[in-house]
């Protein structure tokens, strides 16, 4: 039974980075995302006379790049994951959506996000953002106490807490100056890179929902929180995956590009 649960949890875990990578995806200097995203920062507007002349607009968007030395293998894993999402995870996700009313799903989602507090707190601190680490603590306490164990995200009503950027270990590595390394499509887990793959291990270890796996002894119940954690995120992740893939020319490149751009933006925060 435990073995089955382990596989189930692993399989469910697979989709975890999808959302974080597809929805919302890191880079080289050639990245157009930074072009588009950085230009809209809260800088004071310059007068048209001071602005640089528009470049050749055909060269405006350089190709988003990341080293992909094992592209063939990655494409095979991507294909396999795609089938797995279709055959296994989508039915599970649909079932979850059918069984759980939306407000309840939202509450469960919020509670699991709230419990991830140590991941965010530690990474704020590792990046030297101690003020943010303090705000993160405040957010956790408010949501836990006023938000009934994190079911309601009360902190959204406080702008400084609502805008607090999410943190993960991959971002911390990037802040420390580490590059992506090779692009990797992880079995079940989806798009990642050498750096972010290692980061995932850190995130997994720091997330209290997984602590039972390490310290809970040889009990089946230890598999429930991580499985539930993955299940609560499934509908959103699959929806994001679908939208990134749906109108693409080459789904593999579309998702790789989105991943690189998204992570580049996330690292800036």
């Amino acid at each position: 039974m435990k073995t089955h649960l382990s596989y189930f949890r692993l399989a469910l875990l697979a989709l975890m980075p999808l959302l974080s990578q597809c929805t919302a995806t890191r880079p080289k200097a050639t990245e157009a995302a930074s072009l588009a995203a950085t230009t809209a920062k809260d800088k004071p507007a310059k007068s048209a006379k001071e602005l640089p002349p528009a470049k050749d607009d055909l060269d405006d968007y350089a190709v988003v790049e990341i080293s992909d030395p094992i592209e063939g293998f990655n494409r095979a894993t991507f294909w396999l994951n795609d089938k797995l999402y279709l055959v296994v995870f989508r039915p599970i996700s649909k079932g979850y959506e059918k069984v759980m009313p939306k407000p309840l799903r939202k509450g469960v989602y919020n509670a699991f996000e709230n419990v991830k507090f140590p991941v965010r707190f530690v990474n704020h601190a590792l990046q030297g953002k101690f003020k943010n680490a303090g705000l993160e603590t405040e957010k956790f306490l408010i949501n836990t106490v006023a938000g009934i164990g994190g079911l309601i995200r009360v902190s959204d009503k406080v702008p400084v807490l609502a805008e607090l950027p999410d943190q993960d270990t991959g971002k911390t590595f990037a802040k420390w100056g580490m590059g992506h390394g090779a692009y990797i499509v992880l079995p079940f887990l989806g798009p990642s890179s050498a750096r972010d793959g290692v980061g995932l291990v850190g995130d997994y270890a720091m997330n209290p929902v997984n602590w039972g796996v390490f310290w809970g002894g040889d009990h089946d119940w230890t598999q429930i929180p991580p499985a539930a954690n993955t299940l609560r995120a499934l509908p959103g992740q699959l929806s994001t995956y679908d939208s990134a893939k749906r109108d693409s020319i080459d789904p593999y490149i579309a998702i790789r590009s989105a991943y690189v751009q998204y992570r580049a933006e996330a690292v800036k925060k």
Partner: protein
Amino acid sequence: MNRRLILSLIALLPLGGVVATPMDDAQQVLHKGIDEVLALADRAPNMEALIERLTPVLEKHISFSVMTRRAIGPGWRQFSPEDQANAAALFKTLVIRSYSNSFTIGEKPVINYQSASEVAPGRVDISSTTGYQGTRYKVIYRVEQSENWRATDVVIEGVSMVANYRSQLDPVFKKGGVAAVLKSLEQSAARPQ
């Protein structure tokens, strides 16, 4: 004397208010366009109807030709005028479908417009935070002036729609040229939803 000076200053005050900067114009046009889109999205009975209703509005507010040539990149110069028109039409289909599919019927996004910056003459980036289905997204609309102000890219959480297509189309062009790009666009546009 003092009274006359004050009166003159008061008379001039409204002028400051009516001098619209390019950023004001761009924001006004964008807000209007998005309001139109949201009103339609709110009333659409199903996705097919939504796509049908959104098409003329998006055609008015989005510059598909600019998007297409940037998504293809320098290879665009090798396209004949006929190929260019063909590519732009196919790309338009993809963008409209992609945009329409991002809506869930009955779910209205809450858009909070933030800063705007003129990144080059005739180009304005407008930042916003969009709350949709319980999640907040940072969205930047790139708006450019040709005859009118029109959107030329949408960047959601750092992911640029045009850059994403550029990454996909570049290898296709390098491998097979104009014909391969057109074929891949045709295949994607024809893919059942």
